[in-house]
């Protein structure tokens, strides 16, 4: 008799077949490690203006990405920028999932009024442009890390909620749920033991895909000058500064641009790969 395998095992195998997703996962892992061990791999602190005399110098063997206009090692800034970007991405995604799961499960399971209210709430978030709301909220709270996390999770939960709702709705009609009801299981038990475990795929996918959205929002806000306040480095902020020097000192614009593009792309491809692997029916959505 062959060894028994859970549905997640097959998902993992499908994922392993997806080269782009695996490579993206590895790249993201490397970036993550760099962000975590930033102090160990960078020569100075991110705000240390140790190289004022060499300000704006191009990449060299000492300074892989050159020096910025304020005499700071640019590689250090990029690595610490990953810290900001990733921590915002992950915490926003975490909060998005924490808001989205219960709301989606309740809307999907109970339907009727609960569903109506959640759907109106989602509608509200879909007609208000997130960037404008973010700018307003940013002004309200003077920006900063937590504001951005708040905004990103406020707009990120919608996707998770819709995914969980759809899944719960589909599974609520399944006969194993009926069978559990016939056994006298409470709605709470059914949601906990059957519906949420079966929604694990959309939850994982929703979580991973919320990360790049939050990172993009952070970069956009920082680019507009209302995100993470200097001197804490953020790629969006660095791109904004880099633009002023673009004609003569290309490295100041190119490196943060590449860092942001690669990170966001890797996360998205990883999320796409997970989605295709975990739930083949959601492919391409």
């Amino acid at each position, binding site marked *: 008799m062959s060894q028994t*395998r859970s549905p997640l095992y097959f998902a993992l195998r499908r994922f392993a077949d997806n080269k782009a997703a695996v490579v993206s996962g590895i790249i993201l892992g490397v970036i993550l490690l760099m962000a975590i061990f930033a102090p160990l791999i960078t020569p100075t602190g991110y705000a240390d203006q140790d190289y004022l005399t060499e300000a704006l110098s191009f990449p060299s063997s000492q300074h892989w990405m050159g020096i910025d206009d304020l005499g700071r090692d640019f590689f250090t800034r990029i690595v610490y920028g990953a810290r900001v970007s990733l921590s915002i991405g992950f915490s926003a995604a975490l909060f998005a999932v924490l808001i989205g799961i219960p709301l989606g499960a309740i809307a999907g399971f109970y339907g009727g009024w609960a569903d109506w209210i959640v759907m109106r709430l989602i509608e509200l978030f879909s007609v208000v442009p997130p960037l404008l709301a973010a700018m307003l909220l940013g002004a309200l709270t003077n920006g900063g890390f937590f504001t951005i996390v708040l905004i990103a999770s406020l707009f990120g939960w919608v996707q998770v909620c819709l995914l969980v709702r759809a899944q719960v709705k589909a599974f609520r009609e399944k006969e*194993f749920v*009926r*069978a*559990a*009801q*016939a*056994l006298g*299981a409470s709605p709470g038990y059914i949601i906990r033991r059957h519906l949420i475990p079966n929604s694990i795929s959309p939850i994982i996918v929703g979580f991973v895909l919320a990360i790049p959205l939050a990172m993009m929002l952070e970069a956009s806000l920082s680019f507009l000058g209302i995100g993470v306040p200097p001197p804490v480095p953020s790629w969006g902020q660095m791109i904004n500064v880099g633009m002023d020097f673009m004609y003569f000192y290309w490295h100041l614009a190119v490196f943060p641009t590449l860092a942001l593009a690669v990170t966001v792309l890797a996360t998205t491809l990883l999320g796409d790969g997970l989605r295709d692997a975990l739930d083949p029916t959601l492919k391409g959505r």
Partner: protein
Amino acid sequence: MTAPVLELRNLSKTFQLPRKGGWFAGHIDHHAVRDVSLTLPRNTILGLVGESGSGKSTTGLMTMRLMEPTSGRILIDGADITALTPAELKPYRRQMQIVFQDSYSALDPMMTLARIVAEPLHIHGIGRAEEQTEQALAMLDRVGLHRSYGQRYPHELSGGQRQRVAIARALILRPQVLVADEPTSALDVSVKAQIINLLLDLQQEMGLSILFISHDLSVVRSLTDRVAVMFNGRIVETAATETIFSDARHPYTQGLLSAIPVLNPSDRRPRRFLTADEIERGIPRLPGAGPTPALHQVSPGHLVEAVAG
């Protein structure tokens, strides 16, 4: 005589469907089940036969209190469970269980078979975890799946094997009543025979009473003691199984019987098909019946819907 283990008294279900057009058009009442009364004596199998839309599955769901009846009562072992709250109902849930048609959606894909079969024990808090697993494995063994299947997942099984697991889960609490909603209609012939035999054996062994819902008269003939035929939400004929096959009185029952494919090419015959209107017009007219169609006894234990005429 002891009370029947399950009794349905004048059960009805009306759905309100939105009427087309206009703001204040209101609703149309759709009578899915009308005034259905059934008794299931202890240790017997009762077939509930009809086509899709006849109300047979709705009746099954109401019996399990998975759907609330519009009117009527449900009695388990003489106890009225129609109006019990979920908490009050829970002990009675041990007395009655259900098996569905689609074995694939009947099992949680994320759970191992041992957990699936042990779930009823878990919900009712019977025994410690190891005991629950042990009982589940024994039950799997009883329905013909080796204990080693306990660690497997539903997607690794065939349709017939999954249906065995669903039966194991339904019977692990040793209920008195099993509602079986088309459990064999999605299965291949050879597997169908296996499941029918399994149900027959278990019924004998456990002293079980089964409400067997089906559209397949051939299966019903091999499995049941009595048959009730449903049409348009009402019961139009009920009798001992062989009586239905030898002496069907209602035009709908006759239509169903003639629709069974022949069992040998030499029996091929031309057929006549009645429309729903023709069936309604063809309700038997019997002396002694009432002015409106109602069940009327034509011989002991054989009831047919009839009008005076």
